[in-house]
């Protein structure tokens, strides 16, 4: 007889069906509904076949079905097999395998497949709540494994549940050792197709209305913890890509060339520099944000001459960077090439624009005067709104002379154009402004809602100077952050101005707490990659893979020994259940009839009580006899335990 070919119990199939549903649910937000539907359909088929056994498909149905479904997946994704395609295939495979499963060995294979599917949602999302959800499923899978290997019919089995729980509890410390010490390498091992899923954030093109769609997003762009003093909120300009080229409608990003990296000058460390750690969310772009302006480039990035930080590879995972920024701009010579780039005016610029600038240049004494005149023009006539009227063929002119309401994108693009027309080299800088300070965790969260665009102009004596036309119109935008939770389309813009009171304060503190937990989750767990691992382990003198493997072996052995010895210890001290029941009974009787003395045997004690309670004497004697028989004889222990717990004086 072989247990391998024993048929699966129906209860186990039900459990497996339930777990399969739980595994598919987190995928439902990012996989195509077609595949979610197919996966559920297969599960429903399997559950129906529990009721009507004739529905159980034969090999000759399943084989074409599997081929057909495989074809559908291929047809949808082509040969590029990334996370979407493989996740879709896996959840369908889950249903197929379950339909095909007959015996214990099949069930084992199904559970292995489930373990693999368990990690696929994390390729899309690694939030802490999803991790806890995964842990719950992991426990259920362990339970399914144990049920499959112990041939029990009912799932109501506390003993097996307890074993699963104990295994999980013992596995967690061992897992932590592996997580910390297992040598990480920088993936991918082979190139994978780019996934089409949109990541919100700045793109490499800016049109006047570009940033407004971000203002509603509460998603985190990055987090910053200052190791030095933090700058004022209005000085929190997080510098990203720099835009030089425009065609009058859009501004384009041309990636800096090698020569630009060579020209970049590293600033030496100064006492009033800002030191900070920046935790970047994967934004699938090359650029890195830094406080205006970064002094040097971290290891895995380059600094360009226009002070952009460019990563060596697209950011596909959470990564943290140690950065240094300085507010003082060093005086520079403007290169000829940059001057040409910074002054290039699109050919189709409207004559009215030239006329407007002409008024200012005629009356102005110097460049600064021109800038101030332009800013006060904005201040006088423009409104700040998240829902500006749409612009047509010539957005700059339409915005400047007709609609006059807009968002930072409108102000910055038009202002830069005006400056160029006035003969002042100007460029556009994309990035974020502000951030929400978390008192509890002492860090800033910079959200997509903080996305911002501003202008830099070249002043002969000062170099590139940051000018933010938005600040001229809506100083609140710069001094406080946009409150994305209060933001409604077509509504007024809400800023985080007033410190909340009462219930709102409590809500704020809870919010801080949640964000702090999230911060540490991101920082400690998600960003723990090859770089962070080396950095962390070097504190303990572990410098390379060989050291890691050695300490991995040592620590896992220690953890295993510890958990085993704890279990042995607990086991050794577990008293005989009969004795335990007896002691419990003595304690209970002691309250009424006097404590049992240490020198008294059970017979002595019971007969002493028997004298005080003659009506119970007979019962006590029987109980004592049962005790002796169960404890020292071969009588089943349950008999005494039951009798002892039911006995009342």
């Amino acid at each position, binding site marked *: *007889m072989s*247990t391998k070919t024993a048929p699966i119990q129906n209860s186990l199939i039900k459990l497996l069906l339930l777990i399969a549903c739980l595994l598919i649910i987190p995928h439902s937000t990012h996989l195509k509904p077609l595949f979610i539907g197919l996966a559920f359909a297969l599960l429903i088929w399997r559950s129906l076949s529990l009721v009507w056994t004739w529905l159980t498909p034969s090999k000759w149905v399943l084989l074409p079905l599997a081929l057909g479904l495989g074809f559908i997946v291929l047809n949808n994704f082509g040969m590029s097999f990334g996370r979407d395609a493989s996740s879709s295939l896996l959840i369908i495979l889950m249903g197929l395998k379950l339909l095909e499963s007959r015996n214990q*060995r099949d069930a*084992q*294979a199904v559970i*292995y497949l489930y*373990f*693999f599917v*368990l*990690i696929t949602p*994390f*390729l899309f999302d*690694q939030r802490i709540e*999803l*991790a806890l959800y*995964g842990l719950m499923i*992991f426990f259920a899978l*362990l339970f399914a*494994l*144990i049920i*499959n*290997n*112990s*041939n029990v019919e009912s799932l109501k089995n506390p*003993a*097996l549940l307890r*074993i699963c729980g*104990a*295994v*999980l509890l*013992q*596995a*967690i410390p*061992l*897992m932590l050792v*592996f*997580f910390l010490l*297992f040598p*990480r390498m*920088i*993936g*991918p*091992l*082979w190139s*994978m197709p780019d996934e089409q899923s949109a990541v919100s954030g700045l793109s490499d093109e800016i049109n006047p209305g570009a940033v407004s769609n971000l203002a509603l997003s509460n998603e985190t762009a990055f987090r910053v913890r200052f190791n030095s003093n933090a700058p004022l909120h209005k000085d929190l300009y997080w510098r990203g890509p720099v835009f030089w080229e425009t065609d009058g409608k859009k501004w384009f990003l041309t990636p800096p060339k090698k020569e630009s990296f060579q020209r970049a000058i590293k600033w030496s460390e100064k006492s009033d520099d800002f030191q900070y750690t920046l935790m970047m969310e994967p934004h699938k772009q090359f650029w890195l944000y830094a406080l205006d302006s970064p002094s040097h480039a971290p290891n895995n990035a380059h600094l360009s001459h226009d002070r952009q930080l460019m990563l060596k590879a697209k950011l*596909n*995972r959470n990564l943290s960077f140690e950065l240094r920024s300085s507010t003082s701009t060093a005086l520079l010579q403007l290169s000829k090439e940059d001057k040409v780039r910074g002054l290039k005016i699109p050919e189709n610029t409207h004559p009215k624009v030239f006329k407007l600038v002409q008024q200012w240049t005629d009356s102005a004494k110097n460049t600064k005067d021109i800038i101030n005149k332009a800013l006060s023009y904005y201040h006088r006539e423009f409104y700040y709104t998240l829902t500006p009227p749409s612009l047509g063929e010539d957005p700059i002119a339409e915005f400047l002379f007709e609609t006059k309401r807009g968002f930072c994108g409108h102000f910055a693009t038009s202002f830069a154009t005006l400056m160029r027309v006035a003969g002042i080299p100007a460029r556009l800088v994309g990035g974020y402004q502000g951030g929400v300070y978390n008192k509890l965790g002492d860090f800033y969260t910079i959200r997509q809602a903080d996305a911002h665009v501003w202008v830099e102009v070249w002043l002969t004596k000062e170099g590139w100077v940051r000018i933010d036309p938005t600040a001229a119109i809506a100083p609140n935008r710069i001094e406080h952050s946009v409150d994305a939770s209060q933001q409604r389309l077509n509504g007024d813009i809400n800023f985080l101005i007033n410190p909340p009171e009462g219930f709102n304060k409590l809500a704020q503190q809870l919010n801080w707490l949640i964000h702090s937990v999230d911060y540490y989750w991101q920082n400690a*767990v*998600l*960003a723990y*990659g090859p770089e962070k691992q080396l950095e962390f382990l070097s504190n303990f003198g572990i410098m390379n893979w060989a050291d890691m493997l050695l300490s991995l072996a040592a620590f896992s052995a220690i953890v*295993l020994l510890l*958990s*085993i010895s704890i*279990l042995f210890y607990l*086991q050794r001290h*577990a008293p005989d*259940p009969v004795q335990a029941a007896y002691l419990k009974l003595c304690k209970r009787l002691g309250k009424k009839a006097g404590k049992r003395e240490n020198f008294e045997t059970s017979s002595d004690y019971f007969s002493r009580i028997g004298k005080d309670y003659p009506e119970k004497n007979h019962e006590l004697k029987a109980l004592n006899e049962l005790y002796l028989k169960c404890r020292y004889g071969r009588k*089943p*222990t349950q008999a005494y335990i039951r009798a002892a717990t039911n006995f009342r004086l």
Partner: protein
Amino acid sequence: MALTLAQRFSLKRFTRGEPAYLREIELNHRRIFILPNKAGLSLAIVILLMLIASINYNNSLGFVFTFLLAAAAQTSTFYAYKNLSGLLISPTKSKPCFANDQLEINLYVIEPNQRARWQITASHQGQQQTFNLLANNQTILPLPIKANHRGWYKPKTITFSTSFPFGLFKAWSPLLFDHAILVYPQAIDRGLNYQLDSKDQINGGILSVASGTDDFAGLKPYQTGQSYRHINWKAFAAEKGIYSNEFSAEQSADIYLDWLSCADLDPESKISQLCYWVLSCEKKGLSYGLRLPGVELTPNNGNAHQAHCLKQLALYEY
């Protein structure tokens, strides 16, 4: 008994078990071994795939769950060990059996540690028995095996194994017991007759069985120890007391089942023939003796006598 270093590292310890010297064996760390089984190796492949996926996507949570699975598998080895350790196993009495018959090796398994045991398989020469055992409980496991030869049957290695809890590792303990089970000779009738009178044996003649074997010769008061087949039930029903029938043949001569009576046969066949006679005489309630070269058992009957005769035949060496 401590093992010598050579014994400790001998490969036989893992497959055949330690040399037999005990009647009762407690499964402990010295006797329990553990290795991944096929399902465990396939899980290792799954874990490897999960690891590759995690590396490829630089996915921290992928690493977490991959390592958690590996750690849980590793931890399960301990539970597999716990599932076996502490069991007390001893062979107990088996039913007597004849050569070429099914022999049952009975193992008495005691759980003394207040732990429920799951899905333990005892196997011996390809025969398996799987059992669960409740805490503080005991059971008797019969392991059938075909007995080929008469004499003492010594069980080979009996292996206790388990894949509990997750079916990833097989923990096993090979046991050799200092235990032997008596196998009686096969009873084969060669068509010969046993002789009635012991004194005639010298002539070597084979006398026919007296026709009066079953002749009724009268009643005698029943004495304890006599076969119940001989009780005169009619007299008992008439409430005359318990009497037993006396048969003339029984009185006239004691039967000696004699090695020399089957002179033409080869020795094994002789033993088989004698065995057959012992059984048939006992069945008929006759009093019979056994005479082998060097062995003589005086005529008697009853189960104990039969067992004694069969044991002599089983162990007889010519």
